[in-house]
């Protein structure tokens, strides 16, 4: 067996396909469950349910296994936001309340809030300018 064949055999091509299918199904199940939650309990309850669930699973140490398996299927919904916050807070817990938890709390979630706010800011300004014309 020559080098090229080995490379071809070891390239994770099917794994990409598998990841994509898993992300699609996991995301789909989350979306369908959210729709059920919204129509039975309302929008706020849906958000609270997912955030509390994601934080609890992260605290119990189960979330990392789930994320490794389902990938973007659970990162792109709101659960990923809650997971990143709890995970970084837990990780730096030993370094103290201020320099540990406080300083690292928003490590990933902060960029979501920052770029969301900046995008909204720029787009609203743009919208207002277009109205003036």
């Amino acid at each position, binding site marked *: 067996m020559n080098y090229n064949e080995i490379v071809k055999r070891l390239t994770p091509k099917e794994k990409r396909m598998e990841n*994509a299918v898993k992300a699609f199904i996991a995301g789909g199940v989350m*979306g369908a469950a959210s729709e059920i939650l919204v129509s039975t309990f309302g929008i706020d309850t849906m958000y*609270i349910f997912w*955030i509390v669930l994601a934080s*609890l699973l992260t605290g119990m140490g189960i979330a990392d296994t789930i994320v490794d398996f389902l990938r973007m299927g659970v990162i792109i*919904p709101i659960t990923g936001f809650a997971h990143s916050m709890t995970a970084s807070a837990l*990780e730096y817990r030993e370094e103290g309340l201020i320099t540990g938890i406080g300083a690292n709390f928003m490590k990933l979630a902060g960029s979501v809030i920052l*770029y*969301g706010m900046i995008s909204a800011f720029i787009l609203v300004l743009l919208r207002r300018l277009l109205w003036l014309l």
Partner: protein
Amino acid sequence: MIIKSFLFTGAVCLIAQIIKDNTRLTSGHITSLFVSIGALLGFFGLYDKIIDCVGGGARVVITSFGNTLYTTALEEGILNMLSGVSLGITTAIIMAFIITLVFRVKD
């Protein structure tokens, strides 16, 4: 609506997974990118139509965060833009803090 939610959320996660597997971007890059895309879809008035059509599935993905920021900024003023998403952020912060105090990292 449930099937539409399944397909929409699944498709968004599928796109994210394809980007993740084929580029060097991390999940942090992709979530930030998707928030901006959500705000952009809100700017063109598309995201509210998607929510009307799809329902809960369109609200649970992170693109909805960007859209809510944009719509709230437009309706209630730019400096009040966080009021639309404050429920999610506040719940996440309080829960994360309580969980951090209660649990320890196991490794």
